């Protein structure tokens, strides 16, 4: 599997402020990678360094084999970027805005017109192609932004907070568009702080905190790593021995009694069948359900642990 984006020890400092610290990032060709973390955790700075729009203080980056600091034109020819709350020239139409992008990419006129028609149609904007962008809603501007990215037929698409400010329906639509990019074979780098929204489209994610990528892996791996169990099973049962019986089930990591008859079981595997068997043997099973915690919880739990550790040390 070839590597689309790779950074080694990438660091950016603004005076005393460390924006990005020793980032080692690796994106395989064709995957959707989510850079997740709160605002100010270094996501956008990383993106700007990958595009050669800001110079790293230390470390190196390679995008499709090119060095963004020294060969930014080569990188930018092949990488599409949708900035955080993208802006357009309001007094120009959607078509004219894309014409400018096409001209900056050096596309010949006929080719540009063909591609603009294609991307506008794909984004469902063909009916408003000749309306001024000033009249567009946030969701339409965001789709126009994606059209702008696709216009240059990039190999890598970098999307910064693509669903921010969209209503839930528009956000879902937009996520579906992002999935369609993956089907086209694009490598997608997604930055967002809306963890629950983007976890569904990412093959792998990296959690960012204060300029460092603190966790990396698939969503399942992170659940396993941070929450100990990737499965959370709710059990309602009567009986004295139930709690001990639950603890003895293979694969169970933690059992907590939430109130009266209900227990929360964290497990590495889906062991509902075994739980049911054992609870029935030792008492009375009233209810059994499973849920899978989202990334929000992974993130929150991780930093609870980190802060608890540092608090204990101090």
């Amino acid at each position: 599997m070839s590597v689309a984006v790779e950074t080694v020890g990438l660091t950016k400092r603004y005076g005393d402020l460390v924006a990005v610290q020793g980032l080692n990032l690796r994106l395989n060709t064709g995957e959707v990678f989510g850079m997740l973390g709160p605002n100010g955790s270094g996501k956008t700075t990383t993106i700007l360094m990958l595009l050669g729009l800001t110079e790293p203080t230390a470390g190196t980056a390679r995008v499709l084999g090119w060095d963004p600091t020294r060969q930014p034109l080569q990188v930018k020819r092949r990488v599409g970027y949708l900035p955080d709350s993208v802006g357009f020239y309001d007094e120009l139409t959607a078509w004219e805005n894309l014409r400018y992008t096409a001209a900056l990419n050096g596309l010949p006129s006929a080719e540009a017109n063909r591609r603009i028609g294609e991307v506008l149609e794909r984004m469902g904007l063909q009916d408003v192609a000749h309306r001024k962008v000033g009249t567009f809603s946030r969701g339409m501007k965001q789709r126009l932004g994606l059209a702008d990215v696709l216009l240059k037929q990039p190999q890598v698409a970098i999307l910064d907070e693509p669903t921010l400010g969209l209503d839930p329906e528009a956000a879902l639509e937009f996520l579906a568009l992002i999935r369609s990019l993956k089907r086209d074979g694009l490598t997608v780098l997604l930055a967002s702080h809306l963890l629950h929204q983007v976890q569904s489209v990412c093959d792998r994610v990296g959690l960012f905190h204060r300029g460092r990528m603190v966790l990396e892996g698939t969503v399942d791996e992170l659940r396993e790593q941070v929450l100990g169990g990737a499965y959370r099973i709710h059990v309602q049962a009567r009986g004295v021995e139930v709690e001990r019986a639950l603890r003895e089930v293979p694969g169970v990591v933690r059992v907590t009694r939430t109130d009266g008859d209900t227990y929360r079981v964290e497990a590495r595997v889906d062991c509902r069948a075994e739980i049911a068997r054992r609870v029935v043997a030792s008492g009375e099973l009233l209810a059994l359900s499973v849920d899978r915690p989202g990334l929000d919880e992974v993130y929150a739990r991780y930093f609870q642990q980190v802060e608890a550790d540092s608090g204990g040390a101090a």
Partner: protein
Amino acid sequence: MSTELAQSGAQALARREGSPWTGLWAVVYKELADHLTGIRMQILETLMLLTAVGTVYAATQSIRQTIGEDPFLFLRLFTTAREPLPSFVGFLGFLIPLTAIALGFDAINGEYSRRTLSRVLSQPIYRDALILGKFLAGLATLAITLVALWVVVTGMGLFVLGLPPGGEEVARGLLFLVATLAYAGIWMGLSMLFSAVFRQPATSAMTAIAVWLLFAVFWDMLAALISQALRPTQYGGVAEELAQARLQLLLARFSPNTLYAETVIALLNPAVRSLGPVLITQLEGAVLGTPLPLGQSLLIVWPQFTALVAVVILLFAATYVLFQRQEVRA
């Protein structure tokens, strides 16, 4: 610290690849189209056209009445004032800075406030192309406007006076055009510089207008005050007065308005022989009132003209450096 220095040194040595002017013409065309179709420029151009027609018409009326035989009748079209209207160049002196400031004041901070900068710079171009493209498009807009005005004035002259302009008059008129373009370039360069310094387009516009007011209204007063304070005429001697006048002129020439006014006077009035104080002894053998050849007039204003162009280049260079060092994120 030393490793950091070594690294930044290594980065400075490593050259970036690809032409800095990639995409330059795309930027120029886009900006030029914006300027020429924008309502802002249309208003100013209409205003300029109306003043041109008005002042030149008034000038033709008074030329027909007063001056019957002038070898440079055509140049009078530019400079003749008739109450209550000022001359065409007088009006231009006001309208050109205004137009030039309107072209540049939101060049850079406008891209930030519309949030288009990072999207545009993520296309395969360098920042060099963006800033130079904007500057060239502004200059081209000014040039188009000025040439149009010049043609209108000349056309009206032909029509009303019924005289074709002579070769030297055309040459002087064209040089006047170039000098006006340089003067306009200064105000556009200044407003673009402010658009890189200030985050708000309103702030950069107001600052540019304030600087223009300073030079247009207060600078000459300041020059007079300072020269009187530094070189007082205590005994009333010629040497003292000359020293004061020279200092005042020197100070006045820090203003682009003075430089432009001097250039225009010498170019459009061939009888002008000197732009500074002249002693009687220096006029020995001169036939007063006779026109100078074009080459000699050009020689008189060459320093002023060079200074105008140099200021444009300096302002652009400052904007360029500032913009290159700015973060893409606001």
